[in-house]
């Protein structure tokens, strides 16, 4: 088999990114949409770390910043979700249509 190069990792990351995009665009449950966003961020992280093998450690440092962002995003997103569930008793995004009137 061919040796594993950077392109292999990039293809895996692209597939993971597509899975996350499909999850964001097709699911109704907000929790699963937030988890799909985590999948997208992880795909980006895999790209960054794969490139850091070619061009030094800057990619790994940036991957750590991306993980920090993911933690902040998860905290704020889940806080919004709890506030939303308290008001509307639902976790489905297509029932949040108050701005669509």
């Amino acid at each position: 088999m061919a040796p594993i190069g950077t392109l292999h990792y990039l293809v895996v990351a692209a597939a993971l990114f597509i899975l996350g995009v499909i999850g964001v665009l097709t699911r109704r449950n907000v929790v699963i949409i937030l988890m799909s966003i985590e999948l997208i961020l992880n795909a980006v992280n895999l790209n960054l770390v794969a490139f850091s093998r070619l061009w030094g450690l800057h990619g790994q440092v940036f991957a750590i910043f991306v993980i920090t962002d993911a933690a902040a995003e998860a905290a704020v997103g889940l806080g919004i979700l709890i506030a939303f569930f308290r008001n509307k008793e639902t976790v489905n995004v297509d029932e949040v249509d108050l701005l669509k009137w």
Partner: protein
Amino acid sequence: MEQAIQPGMQPVATTFFFYLLSGLTLLSGVFVITRKNPVHSALALIFGLLAQAGLYLMLYAPFVAGVQIILYAGGIMVLFLFVIMLVNLERSQREERFNKQWVVGLVAAVALGVLFVVVYVKGKALFPYRIAQPLENSNTQQIGVMLYGQYMFAFEIASLLLLVAIIGAVVMAKKRI
């Protein structure tokens, strides 16, 4: 830093482990977006994050792999599981799991995938098979030096971001301010 990887210390069965770990990552990604129960999705995501930490180890990034396990699989996913148990699931489990525009969303995602394929097929020569410097033994030390030297300002901004996120989450989730 001065000790490069010895010829006798080459990693073994790289190809096999790459395909195993990336297959596990993608399979758990598929489980995340197709399961009806969000708890199953969260458990699949934890499994996928652990497999991806293995991929980071194969890329000579042990510090990022450790951060991935501790912060992602240990911290963020616990937060997700707590929130899943706070919002009730019985109603959403009987309902349709995909929204009405799922065909459009799938077509858009497939179009994005075709774009990726075109880019990677045309730009294959830009990603060579070389390895710059797999410095596994001093990886954490070097990342620490970079974080507190060159990326000091970004590091402080990140701490400010976390503070804002904490305050925002508390304000949002509080019943009455």
